[in-house]
């Protein structure tokens, strides 16, 4: 019974949990984020990275993976009001931005996000 894992260039393997989130937060790096994005059919641009880095900052600050509402508000505070909109985040990350962004950022699945 194989555990879910992400395979990276040079034969590196990173363990995932049952929801596809990193099993160990310390495994995260830029290469891991790019591979996770590739799984989602996405290519990361500077605009994506701004949000991914911001959500990692949120986790550092509060010890939480943000739900959508908190993420939208926090994005507005730090990246400007025009980006602090759920439509902006959905354009970048798809229909469930809070779940996708936390996954790409190597954070646990937001506990209170449905």
């Amino acid at each position, binding site marked *: 019974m194989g555990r879910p894992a992400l395979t990276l260039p040079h034969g590196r393997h990173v363990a995932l949990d049952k929801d596809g989130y990193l099993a160990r937060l310390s495994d995260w790096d830029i290469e891991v984020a790019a591979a996770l994005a590739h799984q989602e059919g996405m290519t990361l641009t500077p605009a994506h990275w701004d949000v991914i880095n911001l959500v990692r900052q949120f986790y550092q600050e509060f010890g939480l993976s943000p*739900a959508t509402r*908190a993420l939208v508000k926090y994005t507005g505070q730090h990246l400007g009001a025009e980006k602090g909109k759920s439509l902006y985040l959905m354009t970048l990350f798809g229909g469930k931005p809070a779940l996708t962004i936390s996954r790409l950022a190597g954070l646990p699945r937001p506990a209170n996000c449905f």
Partner: protein
Amino acid sequence: MKTLTFLARSGPYGSSKAKALLDMVLSAAVFEQKIQYIFLDDGVYQLLSDQDSAQLGAKNVSAALPALDLYGVDRIYLDTESLQARGLQSRQLLIPAQPCNSDEIRSLIADSDMVFSL
């Protein structure tokens, strides 16, 4: 919109109750209900600034409190009698909470559609 009241009555690290109630509050916030978060009894210890749980190998429960505003949880209350009984002062608190006496807390509870206590 329902009024949901959460009574935080436990200290931050003696059990997982403080963290469990906080998770319930954050989950309820997603549904955009009217949420009242009331700290009383040993729950007032959850609000103290400068908590450092690294030696316990536990997550700092208080770190999430400043995020409540981002979740739209802005009705935060504090039982002044509980604070005084423990020799604590409101200037030691990490986030602003509206001080209440027992009468005020009773009426907050009476106005609730649901009350959770941990």
